[in-house]
């Protein structure tokens, strides 16, 4: 299928440009781009009317809940949500039931995804069996089966000897290890960030220093082993100085932040609203603004949704007992547009963090407007206003903190390998 997109506002994260132009795709590949008069030999022409054409989002850390909790989310519903939200590659988390920790379970997930999801899947695998932090998984076999990274997600491998061996083994294979850095002792039982708000609400809380502690430990072990490491969910200023030092020392490290920690703060929890209960918990406004700055300077490489479906029952509980996490595949782009409209980040910088950087880190060819790259594209209107109604979300679970929020930024069309997947075609 060959399409020529004309009259587009091209968001090129590689060149760092936001400019008028055209782009053509042939056989699922970006064939040519340019400014000025487009070539006239195309059968199918799509006039973008000056709207933005950008690479599709590569979202690291999507929880699909399949296998095990299909009542919360399946590959089909997650895929539909992703397509509608402009996410063309879901980098899926292994914290399912059972855990994706063997080539067999990984193949199951991949097969399911290919059968029903309209967008691409790049699966991650656990780093230790059952995410229990004791024995490493078959990193080699899993890598051959398509695992793009290895992570025990929010389980911290507290036995440093085990973690060191995992890092050392992974390094030999060039495998990327991801972690949510956290000191497990300090953060045990916490539901909020310690501070005035948690004291007012009487919630058990944890200092952001727990994240810094976990990160410092991980970075020391990375320095020791030379492994490739990605801290995928940093959220506080306290962590950044440590991370900066490691990056400047030339370690092979990158860091991510999830969109909620860039657009919300602890006060949004308000009167114990459990849809705002996240892991790590929402931070102070100071932390939030420092994280946005770190994306702008490039210290933080990647923005992701940390899409975490939870059913109504697990959220309709007292705050301490309620489950953590929020769905975000469909709200990632409009939430990111808040940062654009506030002037904090321009579109190429945002898309660099949502497309190019994650793709590069995982060694994927998509996520760029480059001739020869896969035609994973989104057409969107950054200014289209709407009020989010969680009932309209395509995810099976509707646990979004943005319910009722005024947002701007709508995906008009999503293409995966040149094929339109949103809006769905008959």
């Amino acid at each position, binding site marked *: 299928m060959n399409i020529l997109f004309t009259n587009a506002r091209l968001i090129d994260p590689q060149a760092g440009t936001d400019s008028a132009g055209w782009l053509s795709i042939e056989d699922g590949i970006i064939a040519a781009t340019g400014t000025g008069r487009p070539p006239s030999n195309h059968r199918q022409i799509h006039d973008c009317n000056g709207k933005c054409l950008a690479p599709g989002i590569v979202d690291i850390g999507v929880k699909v809940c399949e296998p095990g909790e299909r009542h919360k989310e399946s590959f089909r519903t997650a895929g539909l949500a992703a397509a509608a939200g402009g996410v063309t590659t879901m980098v899926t988390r292994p914290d399912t039931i059972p855990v994706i920790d063997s080539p067999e379970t990984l193949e199951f997930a991949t097969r399911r995804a290919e059968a029903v999801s309209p967008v691409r899947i790049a699966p991650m695998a656990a780093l230790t069996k059952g995410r229990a932090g004791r024995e490493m998984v078959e990193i080699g076999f899993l890598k051959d089966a398509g695992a793009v990274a290895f992570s025990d997600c929010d389980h911290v491998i507290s036995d440093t000897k085990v973690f060191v061996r995992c890092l050392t083994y992974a390094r030999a294979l060039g495998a990327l290890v991801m972690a949510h850095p956290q000191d497990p002792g300090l953060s045990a*039982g916490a539901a909020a960030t*310690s*501070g*005035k708000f*948690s*004291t*007012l*609400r*009487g*919630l*058990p*809380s944890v*200092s952001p220093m727990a994240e810094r502690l976990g990160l410092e430990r991980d970075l020391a072990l990375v320095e020791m082993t030379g492994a490739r490491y990605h801290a995928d969910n940093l959220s506080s200023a306290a962590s950044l100085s440590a991370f900066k030092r490691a990056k400047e020392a030339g370690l092979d490290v990158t860091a991510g932040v999830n969109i909620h920690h860039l657009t919300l703060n602890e006060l949004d929890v308000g*009167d*114990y609203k459990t849809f705002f209960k996240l892991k790590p918990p929402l931070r102070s406004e100071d932390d939030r603004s420092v994280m946005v700055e770190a994306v702008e300077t490039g210290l933080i490489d990647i923005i992701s949704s940390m899409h975490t479906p939870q059913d109504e*029952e697990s959220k*309709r*509980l*007292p*705050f*301490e*007992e309620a489950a953590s996490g929020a769905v975000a595949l469909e709200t990632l782009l409009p939430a990111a547009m808040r940062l654009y409209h506030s002037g904090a980040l321009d579109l190429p910088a945002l898309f660099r963090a949502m497309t190019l950087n994650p793709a590069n880190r995982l060694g994927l060819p998509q996520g760029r407007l480059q001739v020869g790259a896969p035609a994973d594209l989104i057409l969107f209107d950054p200014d289209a206003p709407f009020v989010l109604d969680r009932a309209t979300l395509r995810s099976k679970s509707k646990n979004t903190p943005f319910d009722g929020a005024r947002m701007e930024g709508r995906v008009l069309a999503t293409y995966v390998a040149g094929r339109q997947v949103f809006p769905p075609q008959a």
Partner: protein
Amino acid sequence: MTFRQKHLLGIEPLAPDEITTLLDLADHYVSLNRGEHKHSDVLTGRTQINMFFENSTRTQASFEIAGKRLGADVMSMAMQASSIKKGETLIDTALTLNAMHPDLLVVRHPHSGAVNLLAEKVNCAVLNAGDGRHEHPTQALLDALTIRRAKGRLHRLTIAICGDIAHSRVARSNLMLLGKMENRIRLIGPPTLMPARIAEFGVEVYDDMREGLQDADVVMMLRLQRERMDGGFIPSEREYYHRYGLDEEKLSFAKPDAIVMHPGPMNRGVEIDGTLADDINRSVIQEQVEMGVAVRMAAMDLLARNHGGAS
């Protein structure tokens, strides 16, 4: 007469004039309670359900007596023994009880915010009888009434709150209330038992008890909540008593007419010297219990008025 609340979930939403209204009415109920005929009929025909998801003797008894004196039909449920054990969620329990048309729900729960959550789901007035580490509004109100009656005013007093502030809903509600009424508040305790950023609440924080008690008008002791401790907040009970237990010597740093308060139940010899607790010249601990009934009658009376007829 101003009281605009639909529920009594905490001190935080109350305005100073609402607190005064409630305390004035409670004063009236103190007189009623001291008479021979303790009955009023303001809640006749109303149903009050006490749901205690956490053990309580005195608070539950106090709410029960308060309701009965006002003529309500009172039922107390020990929730630990009921359907919660069978896996029913808090909200389902609330909806079930709501269907029985209660007018007043009195709720205690081990988790902060649980009572707020429940209040969203029912039609009747909800009174927070203590939620996690969050609030215990009737305790703060009864403390305020006790102070007002002992000191003749509830403003410009120096009030020291001592002990396990971090785990205490009593401390939170009290510092909210006493702050709203423009008092000088001092918090005294080991730093491991102080909540984060507590100084930002406009209080003075001391880890030396003698310094903190200097010229205090009111000394409010808190229970050392051993059942809430993960372990290891303090080295030992005896060291705690040595440094933070209230005795004659430490109390001598406060004003000569300072009153001693404790929300109960007391750990004699842990946070307070037994003889001091019984000293009727200094201790108002028994008055606190008495004021508790009156304050709860006033709170239920006012909430019932705001809810008009039965739900």
